[in-house]
């Protein structure tokens, strides 16, 4: 398989995942703000922080500007619009490798989103719009899972998705950690609402309740999102799946090592006295390690420099 072809499906996987997660996070955040009083100090700007876009976003921190930036702005490399365009372009250029229906659906998603975001979207329509995006992303995923042979192209697609997914989960935990740091009174009073929102951002609320405990509590939620081996959006589960995928690819020793390193760095069990600042630091280093995994993917398969 050509390196460039592998790279394209890898990015198709990453952007498809990023688009779905972006839609999910923005949607959940809107819901959260409805539950919190203004003095809680959680606003739209937290969204910008989740995406690490503080430097790129210098606009007013109001609702409209934030949404324009995160959903519509084609210059913003993390906006929904941009992710969907990149997912669609990479799928388009991989048409020889991917099921025809995945291309048709990705193209339809792209056309729909482009049209909807070309005009201002009233807050009332946003929930329905984002639900539609999430649904269509899941549909494309369903086509890929349901109709694609498990050969190299599928492996690279899956690998991209798992790495992106782990990265997104770590970002969401990071923001929750800043809530923890901010205001002790807030945590006591609205803690459960906050953590419910965090879990819902990764569609993890239901699974958490079923398999951890009925009441939502900060450390347990973090532990679930980091260490659970059965919940597909938990970081550890993503790493396990990534390792499984990598095992099917050639020249994978370096990658197995990098993925193991990520897994071993996940603190398990979590220390009792974990505070916001420490969680935040932990997530920074987790994101750095995930970036190292990506670099190893690029070096091993996309830019091979010497003869095999």
């Amino acid at each position: 398989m050509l390196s460039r072809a592998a790279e394209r499906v890898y990015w198709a996987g990453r952007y498809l995942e990023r688009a779905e997660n972006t839609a999910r996070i923005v949607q959940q955040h809107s819901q959260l703000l409805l539950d919190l009083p203004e003095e809680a100090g959680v606003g739209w700007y937290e969204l910008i922080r989740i995406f690490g876009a503080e430097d790129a976003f210098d606009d007013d921190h109001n609702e409209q500007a934030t949404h324009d930036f995160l959903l519509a702005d084609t210059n913003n490399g993390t906006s929904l619009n941009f992710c969907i365009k990149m997912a669609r372009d990479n799928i388009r250029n991989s048409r020889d490798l991917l099921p025809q229906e995945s291309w048709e659906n990705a193209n339809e998603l792209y056309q729909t989103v482009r049209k909807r975001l070309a005009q201002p979207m009233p807050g009332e329509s946003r929930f329905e719009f984002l639900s539609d995006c999430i649904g269509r992303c899941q549909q494309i995923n369903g086509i890929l899972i349901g109709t694609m042979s498990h050969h190299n192209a599928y492996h690279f697609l899956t690998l991209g998705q798992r790495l992106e997914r782990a990265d997104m989960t770590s970002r969401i935990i990071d923001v929750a950690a800043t809530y923890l740091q901010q205001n002790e009174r807030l945590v006591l009073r609205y803690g459960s609402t906050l953590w419910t929102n965090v879990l819902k951002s990764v569609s993890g609320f239901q699974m958490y309740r079923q398999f951890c405990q009925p009441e939502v509590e900060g450390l347990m939620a973090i532990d679930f999102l980091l260490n659970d081996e059965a919940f597909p959006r938990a970081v550890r589960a993503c790493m396990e799946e990534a390792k499984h995928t990598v095992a099917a690819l050639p020249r994978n020793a370096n990658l197995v090592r990098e993925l193991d390193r990520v897994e071993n760095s996940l603190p398990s069990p979590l220390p009792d006295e974990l505070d916001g600042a420490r969680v935040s630091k932990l997530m920074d280093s987790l994101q750095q390690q995930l970036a190292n995994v990506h670099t190893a993917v690029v070096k091993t398969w996309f830019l091979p420099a010497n003869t095999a």
Partner: protein
Amino acid sequence: MQFGSKTYRADGFYDELIKADGTARPHAEKLVDYFSAMRPEQLLERQDAVDSTIVDMGISFTIYSQGDNIDRAWPLDIIPRAMPGSEWDRVESGLKQRLAALNLFIDDLYNDRRILKDKIVPAELIDSSRNYLAPCRGAKPRHGVWAHICGSDLVRDGDGTIYVLEDNLRVPSGVSYMLENRNVIKRVFPSIFRNHRVRPVSEYPSALSRMLQSIAPAEVRGKPEIVVLTPGVFNSAYFEHSYLARTMGVELVEGSDLMVDSDDCVYMRTIDGLKRVDTVYRRIDDTFIDPEAFRPDSMLGVPGMMRAWRAGNVALANAPGSGVADDKVIYSYVPEIIKYYMDEDAIIPNVPTWRCSDPKQLDHVLKNIADLVVKPANESGGYGMLVGPHATRAEHDKFRELLKADPRNYIAQPTLSLSTAPTLCDDTLEPRHLDLRPFILQGDTISVTAGGLTRVAMVKGSLVVNSSQGGGSKDTWIVEDAD
């Protein structure tokens, strides 16, 4: 000849299927019978079937329009264009003769330059040609062959004579449409093939693959690694690049997929690591092949590719520099070139051509410009040319100035009355002008497609057949003669 309720008339041109007296030519009798038995609504219904088959099969071409790339469904007329096998046999030997001579010529130009020393072709013509590439001097591609894939455009004049209009030796395109046209017509009209013995065209991808293997560096053990090099998805012929790679079962690569290592060998980047490449069927222009040797701004090519080629570590098809022989001024010397190297007369004649570089001939062209077709030496796709009889006085004057300013760069030819064939226009069959592009392959042997790509000018009276300018196409049949 009746088609439905209407009588088909060839309007004084040579028609490929119908004689002047209105009856079918012998090789086309059954074909004409078949279509003349159809009612207009049946013809339209079949054309719809052809169109939707083309959409379903994803046969498209790309045109550039105001910065946008638009994928258009490939236009194919339902009525095949047929030629008798015996006539084709002669054309085929003519095409082989021509390409063999052109390759001897190119090899000579970059090595001994005998033909220039013997003053058959003026040396200044070669040295002033922008397609004569200095970095190719002294190169020795295998079998002495430079132009491995040639698409020569053939036209038939009013008296039935077939001429070579031009040779495309750089990156000729269209062969995938020849193959797909046949596939579509076989799907939509399975029954007509039962009454005819039509020579198959489907072996082209295997012939191409065999040829590309035969030119791989001699020391390669086992099956050579072949790739098709494309400028990318935005190129107008990308459909064909991807089609040929797929049908040959080889990788379709872009410049960034390849690299030349310090051993002067070409490698492609794969997930298994670097993999040695032996033959590159490149579909990018000469000067984009290698930014080190030609255009430093080329993003399409591979730095070091020319080094690897000169060292004999990789074969390039066509070899860089081959374009020197498809200059339209050089074209006018091809009969002499055939005589010089092969000691034979050209089997297929050239269209008579005036060279504007010769003052006497230029004078003739300036005086008679209204009756002539004027072409720039180096353009393709029908761009930058003047069709005298169809142009305005102002355009004649404009071209007179262009010719005087740069005579070396122009030739002129008489306006041919191109042959026609019945073509479905609205709901009736009308004569439309056409040409034919066969594809000739040369490696260790020479082969020619049975027929080629027939292109049709869909506008009444028009001679412009290029698909980028509204042309259509036909399936081309070489029909075995009756025993």
